[in-house]
């Protein structure tokens, strides 16, 4: 039974690994359907709790799957899920990166990179906008975000220092 669960975790995570375009958020619906609805590994509440826990941790958001693995098959599940997530992605991205290098020096690559660059910058700005609208709940938040923008755009001050100040500002409850 447990071996079967581990096999299922490996299958689920490795397929999510190469299907999750756009990162962690995009794999939540599939993961939820399999882990909660179809395979009944955990309750709805447990899934939401695990997601909340993973949101607190730094690093790539897709590692959320290792918590699903842990819930289902303990520490073995945790490691199998992480490995099944990272390995197929590694092989695919590495291979594409190799083939990208073979066209990198040709004129066509200049057109592709110049063309896609504004969209990439727009996506980065959109990410900032989405984070801003979900995290800013008042004037304090606006001040911190705008101040951070100007400090990081115009100066070379270490971001860690600014993040420290932002954390302290948050702690005062001024946000």
């Amino acid at each position: 039974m447990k071996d079967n669960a581990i096999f299922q975790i490996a299958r689920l995570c490795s397929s999510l690994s190469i299907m999750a375009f756009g990162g962690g958020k995009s794999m939540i619906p599939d993961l939820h359907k399999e882990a909660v609805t179809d395979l009944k590994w955990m309750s709805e509440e447990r899934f939401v709790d695990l997601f909340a826990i993973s949101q607190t941790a730094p690093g790539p958001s897709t590692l959320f799957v290792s918590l699903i693995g842990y819930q289902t098959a303990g520490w073995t599940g945790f490691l199998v899920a992480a490995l099944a997530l990272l390995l197929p992605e590694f092989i695919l991205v590495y291979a594409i990166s190799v083939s990208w290098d073979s066209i990198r020096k040709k004129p066509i690559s200049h057109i592709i990179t110049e063309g896609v660059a504004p969209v990439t910058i727009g996506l980065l700005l959109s990410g900032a906008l989405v984070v801003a609208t979900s995290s800013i709940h008042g004037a304090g938040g606006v001040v911190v975000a705008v101040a951070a923008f100007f400090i990081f755009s115009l100066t070379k001050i270490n971001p860690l220092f600014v993040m420290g100040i932002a954390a302290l500002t948050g702690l005062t409850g001024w946000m």
Partner: protein
Amino acid sequence: MNSPEAYNFPTAPDPDSPCVSAIFICFAKMTLVSFGGGLTAWSRQILVEEKGWLSDSEFLEILSLSQALPGAINANLAIIAGRRLKGMAGAISAILGLALPAMVILAVLVSLYISCLSNPAVGKALSGVTCACAGLSAATAYRLGKKHFKKPMSLVFVIGTVFLVGVLRFSLIPILLSLGPISALCVWLAGRRAASSEKIL
């Protein structure tokens, strides 16, 4: 692979390329400072500003590629950047550096079964950091995009993307796969037009 250009591939590491432990530590640091978010912004800060391993345009190129591929964008970025720095060994140390500290932290949190957000003090501090992360991400876009904001055509695509993804909340991949090629086509047409007008002059 037997073409003469094959000898120019950056797969053979330069003598001055960083060692694998430096790459591992650099990506581990990236994960550890990204509490509260902003991992892409931190990647640029550390790879471009602190280490000087990549230029802004190289970083932008790698970021574009990472976004178009499946999986976490920052994991893809680590694999591609790591490979460019030191081939296969570099890619492996970069992805391990990024993932291992995150896994350790996840393991600790889940074994205690706590979300830091349930602690009011930690929640408040993180909310401050998250607001600053929004600013940091916007500033990263500003620094990477400086050159592109000056070109009206590029600016149209930046604003279009922000409107579609940031405001209307379309998902990332369809926008990247539709606007990206259109924008590339415009770059190509503009290049051809410039070339033909040079000929006339």
